[in-house]
């Protein structure tokens, strides 16, 4: 393979023949008594793009700093078929008295491999008995096939990076129904602590009393994070027992979506989904969700993240009564979000419900 296709090849560590990966890994541990190998999970990044090797390695380094695993990086390029290549390395963090704890990384670069070849090369190098979590980069394209995903315990996707969200969603839902794996979408994870903040806001009895007066919801998202806003809107609609979403009577402004549903009380709740103004503070755009506001009658609950800081601010107004709170916010880095997923055992039942509802929302926003 040319160096152009592998710009950061050296970041992958030591190149080894495919047939001697395990032996070479053992050598790492045999040579250095101060290193301890640790592994609780097989964690793989799978990508069909060449350019991001450096970023993937940095992500794996960040993840292994918190979660011991066998890390696998699989880059499968749509080039002419060529023999697979492999590299090994270790990510270490200090532990006790000069010792370090390390996670192994095996990186594969495949060319023109189909799902069967990916399975053959990669699955032969898993740490036995440990679950396999795969972080699939970008769209679910070429190799997203039954023989591959049926071996996965948890699949992490990022719907904000999908080129055709409606088609991708159908593909994902189809796979999910046929195989028994857990799915996490980073776009959903990006609203995790915002949803927690909303639950905290409505722990306030006064706000809760006024919730039935809700008329309007506004969600502002950072550039490229419409999917996080849509997932959040779908969740709100489901939790509030809203009817099927419809395009709102008023036409949306450019790039915005405006929807409405009928509440159980028979009122109309409008939902405006807006991208932050391009002129807005540059930092704001690294954040998926900038604000959420629920208002109507005597109530307004606003949750926002100032300049994408590490904190969420909550302001609750219910009649005369008002207060503000501060809570931690979700990580803005993808690796941080994946780390947060690894800390939370088990899938989210709410996400399953929301994913099934999402096609209606894509339809109502004209994204199908």
């Amino acid at each position: 393979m040319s160096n152009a296709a592998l710009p950061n090849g050296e970041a992958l560590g030591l190149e080894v023949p495919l047939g001697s990966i395990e032996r070479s890994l053992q050598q790492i541990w045999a040579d250095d008594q101060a290193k301890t190998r640790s592994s609780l999970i097989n964690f793989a990044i799978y990508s069909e793009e060449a350019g991001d090797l450096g970023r993937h390695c940095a992500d794996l380094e960040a993840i292994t700093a918190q979660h011991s695993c066998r890390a696998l990086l699989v880059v499968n390029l749509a080039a002419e078929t060529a023999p697979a290549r492999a590299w090994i390395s270790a990510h270490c963090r200090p532990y006790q008295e000069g010792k370090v704890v390390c996670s192994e990384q095996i990186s594969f670069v495949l060319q023109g491999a189909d799902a069967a070849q990916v399975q053959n090369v990669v699955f032969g190098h898993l740490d036995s008995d440990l679950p396999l979590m795969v972080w699939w980069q970008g769209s679910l394209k070429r190799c997203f096939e039954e023989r591959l995903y049926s071996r996965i315990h948890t699949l992490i996707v990022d719907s904000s990076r999908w080129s055709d969200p409606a088609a991708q969603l159908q593909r994902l839902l189809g796979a999910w129904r046929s195989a028994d794996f857990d799915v996490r979408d980073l776009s959903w994870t990006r609203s995790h602590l915002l949803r927690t903040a909303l639950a905290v806001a409505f722990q306030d009895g006064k706000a809760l009393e006024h919730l039935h007066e809700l008329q309007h919801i506004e969600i502002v998202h950072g550039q490229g994070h419409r999917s996080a806003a849509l997932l959040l809107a779908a969740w709100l609609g489901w939790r509030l027992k809203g009817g099927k979403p419809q395009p709102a009577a008023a036409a949306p402004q450019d790039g915005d979506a405006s929807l409405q549903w009928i509440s159980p009380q028979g009122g109309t709740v409008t939902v405006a989904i807006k991208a932050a103004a391009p002129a807005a503070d540059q930092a704001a755009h690294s954040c998926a969700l900038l604000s959420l506001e629920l208002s109507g009658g005597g109530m307004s609950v606003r949750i926002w993240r100032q300049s994408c800081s590490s904190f969420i601010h909550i302001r609750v107004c219910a009649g005369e009564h008002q207060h503000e709170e501060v809570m931690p916010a979700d990580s803005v880095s993808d690796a941080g979000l994946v780390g947060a997923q690894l800390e939370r055992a088990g899938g989210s039942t709410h996400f399953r419900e929301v994913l099934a509802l999402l096609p209606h929302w894509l339809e109502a926003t004209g994204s199908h």
Partner: protein
Amino acid sequence: MAELENPFEENLLNRNRAEPCTVVIFGATGDLTNRKLIPALYNVAACGDLPPQFKVVGFARRDKSDEVFRAELEEGNRRNSRQGHDEELWSSFAQNIHYHRSEFEDPAGYVRLKQLLDRFDRERGAPANRLFYLASAPEAFVPILDMLRASGLNHAPQGRWARVVCEKPFGKDLITARALNDTVAATFAERDTYRIDHYLGKETAQNIMVLRFANALFEPNWNSRYIDNVQITCAENLGMEGGRGGYYDTAGALRDMVQNHLFQLLSLVAMEPPTDLSADSVRDEKVKVIRALRPLIGPEAVAANVVRAQYAAGSVDGVARVGYRQEDRVNPQSMTEAYVALRLFIDTWRWQGVPFYIRVGKRLPKKATEISVHFKKPPQVPFATRRLLGNSSENTLVIRIQPDEGIAMRILCKQPGQALNMQQVKMDFRYSSSFGTASPEAYERLLLDAMAGDATLFARCDEVENAWRFIDEIQRAWHYSDKPPPMCEYPAGSWGPREADELLRQDGHQWRLL
């Protein structure tokens, strides 16, 4: 009116959700509040687990403003917070901390406290739940409870709760514990009473139930057919530094550690599986263990099963140390034990004939708390004549509570080579090497649970009283009998007195080497 349901609750974090409340800390300028309680609450906030409109009121007698109080706590938080100190989070957290100056026994102070809490309720627009945390010296518990009752602060407004958290020690014998329980019961319902035992907030203590009941490898073997003996060790290399001799000399190892922390660990190791994970189901099973402890009545029974000791001069980590009676604030004629070892039997079907050995002491070679479960040996007939490298051929499961929390298992393997020799090998799981993220401090978990109404990790009144009943018999034999069992001695820096080794040798056992 039916309680409205918050539609946005989704058990997002898979853990207890604290309910909106005001926490009133009695003794709020003390060491515990500064080092543990406020950093724990701050870290609960840093994890996003504090409820909205949360407030802390610190109650103590010295005169100071909210600002001075907050500045002192900020200083403590910078030093002691597990996740560091963030200015933005601290300033939001600290603006909800207030100081209330009053003597514990001054009724007017409670009238003013009530006015303060009512003012907060008015600002909130609704009455709040109240959590009263007794972080004072134990002698003040009863007066504070009396005052809370007299002022009506123990009664929560309609639809709200008022709870009390009691620090250790909970009494110093059965009589005082009962008297305290009576005062508590006259003031708060048992379901609103949370007796702290911070050992229960530790990650590995909580892991004992998972390890036992969720693993097919252990669950069927956890009984007298397969287990030979169980050892619980709580070793301290410290002595009486920092003036702790004053309190310690009035308590001793048995009352300070065994009655509460070590009996809690013993209960978790020996209990039957609870029918569910509710607080009362778990505690029902735990208290049965304490009730089933074979009583040690009379000086002979105590002498045969319990060894008490004080350390003599010696050295720890190469530093010369004085003996217990020469320590600061310790009575030179003291008859308080700095070390105790016990052999206990639990008279249940599951544990018939299995000795449980407990040892706890100061100025031992290192700091370590752990439980080791020693399995019976298989017949090993084919291997009987084979050589063994190691001091024992039994399988051992070790649960390390602190430091370096984890689980280790010792098994026998064939040594590589032409001969069939055996060697012990250790399989070791360490929380810190497997998980990069640090576990929450015990107080974080316990405060969160108290605010959420989950009493599973707190001691119930019958647990406390049954534990004291057992301990009192030993104290009686030591201090009120004609022929009291001897006070043994060990050099500081050793693993305890020879008599404690003898206690196990009589049964053909030995203490695990730590």
